[in-house]
């Protein structure tokens, strides 16, 4: 009997492991190819082992475009990601508290609107928003990408709301009896307790902003301002020079922050998705 379960478990593990490797094979291939000389990447596409193993792609790729190195692009991206994420998470938590704990006229109406914006395709507002921001003189600044984030993001509002609902309302009442006003209740009592939901929201915001292409593509036109995604896109446009190696190397570099965060924070990510049942 133990022999049979052992065999069963062995078969299970080997099947699932093979499937997992197949799923990740493209990423592994990208990583290993980034260490191959450009002219050998496709000649030796069937082999994962770079022969010879070189780092040149990284040094060449890092030189960037238009006189700006990849370091600049990474810095630009981090600025946008940080400003947009802080804004989106804080404002969403604030709004979520209002929806979850306040009784006010028209609450259901606004909640329905909020859920509606969750399903609203960005493409619908893309053109008029562009016109608005260009009239404001915001083109070629990061404002069109960052400022709207400070007005809450439906996915995060919903995520944090679901979490606040699990905090017993008696806690609010006790705090109010002890003389804590509504506006202190939120930062003092509720906000610290929602930390796990805030962490999940922060992580997702980081991903979406880091990978965002449409925003930078529309609003940032100078190489000095490029984000990592936009720089990679520009790299691709110059692909005729067939410097695949450098492009692969910078693609890998652009994924490093995402992967590091993923492995550090996968608990929050997995739980966030499973509990909210949502992912835009």
């Amino acid at each position, binding site marked *: 009997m133990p022999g049979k379960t052992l065999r069963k478990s062995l078969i*299970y*593990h080997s099947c*699932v492991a093979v*499937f997992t490797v197949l*799923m990740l*094979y*493209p*990423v592994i*291939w*990208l990583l290993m*190819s980034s260490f191959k000389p450009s002219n050998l990447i*496709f000649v030796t*596409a*069937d082999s994962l082992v770079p022969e010879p193993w070189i780092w040149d792609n990284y040094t060449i790729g890092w030189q960037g475009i238009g006189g700006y190195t990849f370091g600049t692009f990474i810095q630009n991206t981090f600025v946008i990601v940080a400003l947009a994420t802080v804004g989106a998470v804080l404002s969403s938590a604030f*709004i979520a*508290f*209002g*929806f979850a704990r*306040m*009784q*006010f006229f028209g609450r259901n109406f*606004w909640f329905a*609107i*909020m859920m509606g*914006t969750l*399903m609203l*395709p960005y*493409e*619908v*507002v*893309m*053109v*008029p*928003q*562009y*016109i*608005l921001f260009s009239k404001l003189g915001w083109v070629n600044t990061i404002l069109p990408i960052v400022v709207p984030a400070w*007005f*809450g993001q439906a996915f995060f509002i919903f995520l944090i709301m679901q979490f606040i609902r699990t905090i017993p309302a008696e806690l609010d009442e006790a705090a109010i009896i002890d003389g804590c006003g509504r*506006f202190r209740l939120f930062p003092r009592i509720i906000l610290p307790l929602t930390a796990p939901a805030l962490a999940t929201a922060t992580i997702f915001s980081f*991903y979406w902003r*880091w*990978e965002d*292409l*449409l925003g930078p593509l*529309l609003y940032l036109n100078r190489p000095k301002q490029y984000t990592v995604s936009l720089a*990679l*896109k520009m790299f*691709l*446009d110059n692909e005729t020079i067939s410097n*695949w190696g450098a492009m692969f190397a910078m*693609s890998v570099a652009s*994924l490093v922050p995402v*992967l590091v965060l993923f492995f550090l924070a996968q608990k929050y*990510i997995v739980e966030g*998705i*499973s509990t909210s*049942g*949502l*992912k835009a």
Partner: protein
Amino acid sequence: MKARQLRNHLAGYAFISPFVIGFLAFTLIPICASLVLSFTDYDLFSPPRWVGLDNFRKLFFQDNKYWKSVRVTLTYVLFAVPLRLVFALLVAMVLNVQVRGVGVYRTLIYLPSIIGGSVAVAIMWRNLFGDQGIINLGLIFLGFDPVRWFGNPTAALWMLILLAVWQFGSSMLIFLAGLKNIPVTYYEAASVDGAGPLRRFFRITLPLLSPVILFNLIMQTISAFITFIPAYIITKGEGGPLDGTLLYSLYLFRQGFVYYHMGEASAMAWILLVVVALLTALLFATSRFWVYYESKGGA
């Protein structure tokens, strides 16, 4: 007493005010503006000129590219969404076991969903499917003819569909959470009554999971309708070959920001909004025939 109630209402609005302001400024007013713009000829530089229904007439009756992009998008949605959900459910069921190390598989299989929307992965995908790419090597190894993925519109679209299916991880996690909520006793009772695995799947798993499936179906359909980055990167912004990967949002982007046809782009945006809203309503409407809510009873 009345003053206190008023204060309560005001406090509520104070908390949701960022959303209300943001909604008005960045969503509602732009949407209304885009409806007006859809009846104009506007290139951003000279003032808009009222042209009535001309933009819609042009799109519907004169623009072959428009219908092409509609067809391409519908094909994409019709294949990518169901395939992704079926994969997600199958793998979720395989991983829904109490075995050591299963968490590692779950995490690693979810990984493509995290990075899948990035430019880096689109570049990677583009190169996997190159003429000498690893996919063609695999096809040759298995005894098939290599496919010219960038030379054939259908093949190129399938390249995008496969990229979407590859990212089934987030739906899989949601399904896994749903599967864990189904009491084991249901399956035990069904087994005792002689129900086989297939019967248990169709009579227990599927009905109890149907609310989650409905929700996923709606969200994934919407996100498939507005897929942009893969099509934009993989075909270098063109939507080729022969417009075979000219997804709706790519064509909308080109209308607006390559040709500066803001009027037509706005018209396309409004058509998209109406179609997505109708489709969502339709999915909700059909849900009472196939979605099972435990509290109401009856299957």
